[in-house]
């Protein structure tokens, strides 16, 4: 069994998939960290399932922290020019309607065919599906 990659390396590797002009949805957990490694000179737009397109990096200082500006992990982030807000049904219209170019999801297991297990462990129901199933479908093809 190969040695496990650390989280930063995984996030860095994911960010190498980012291409100019992409709309990208980053899932809960490690995927969120990929936002720290946008390839230099490329303009990408991040989508958060809770209704935001075009937000910036994580909020660090007390002054930057805003309860009304969070990403899908519930982490407070910073605003950027060109950012916009929308409600949940609209947000998932973007997802299910395949308007998102790239989605990065955390996972428990994945098969060689791409079947993904990421929201429930047998015996530990009910699990937490969140937006993963809609995102996985919306990013297919």
């Amino acid at each position: 069994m190969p040695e496990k990659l650390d989280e930063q390396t995984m996030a860095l590797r994911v960010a190498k998939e980012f291409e100019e002009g992409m709309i990208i949805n980053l899932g809960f957990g490690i995927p969120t960290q990929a936002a720290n490694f946008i390839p230099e000179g490329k303009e990408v737009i991040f989508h958060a399932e809770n209704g935001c397109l075009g937000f910036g990096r994580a909020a660090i200082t007390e002054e930057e922290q805003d309860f009304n500006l969070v990403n899908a992990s519930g982490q407070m982030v910073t605003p950027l020019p060109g950012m916009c807000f929308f409600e949940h049904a609209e947000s998932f219209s973007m997802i299910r309607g395949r308007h998102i170019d790239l989605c990065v999801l955390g996972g428990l297991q994945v098969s060689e065919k791409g079947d993904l297990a990421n929201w429930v462990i047998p015996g530990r129901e009910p699990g937490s599906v969140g937006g993963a199933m809609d995102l996985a479908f919306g990013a297919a093809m």
Partner: protein
Amino acid sequence: MINKVVESYDEVVADVFEGAIILIGGFGPANGTPSNLIRALYAKGTKGLTIVMNTPGTGRQPPPPQFANMPKRKSPPNYDNGGLLIQNHQVSKVITAFPGTPMPGVPSPLHDQRIAGELTVEMCPQGTMAERIRAARAGIPAFFTPTGPGTLLGEGKEIREFNGVPACLEYALKGDFSFVRAYKADRRGNLVYKGTSRNFNATMAGASTVTIAEVDYLVEVGDIDPEGTSTPGIYVDRVVVRKNPEEGI
């Protein structure tokens, strides 16, 4: 004169009845939760409720241990989540996308009461949940969605193929009451939200027989930009205004 403003939280939830279906807006701890409406319903003690909430939460618990690799989270002042109603044994069913995973040492009333057979949990993919609520608002009884077939959450549902893609039948999710949290309202019920707190709040407004908006500020008719109104007042029946928005009450 049309005036949807109701003076107190207690008064605005007075007619919530036993067994009612309540749609509650918000997304996780920091994001547009109608905490005062939840507290008023907690104080009223109405039982047998079905609550529809993306992230019901665990009620009032000691702060969970932080994940080492995640930034510290803080909650808005005087924040309460829908888990408070579960903790108070007022809920018999929860329809949700994200009940969370209980952490060692932190009780989760939802998980505990589910195991004890006190309540049932209907798991719903987040996008399907949003669309079921939108459908209720739009008067659409049911729809087909490609999310679900081939998974645990597609089991037992009617499946049809459209252009070679399997889709499952989902029904509109109409509530008796919607509890939504907004930033500004006028007396006609026009609403504006702040940032990502729009989330399920704007989806749920109008999706129940009675929609109640808890807002930070009441403004004069004409002060909300007609081009920038997020929820038209037609979807809102009652408005209750926070007396001290900065303190969260």
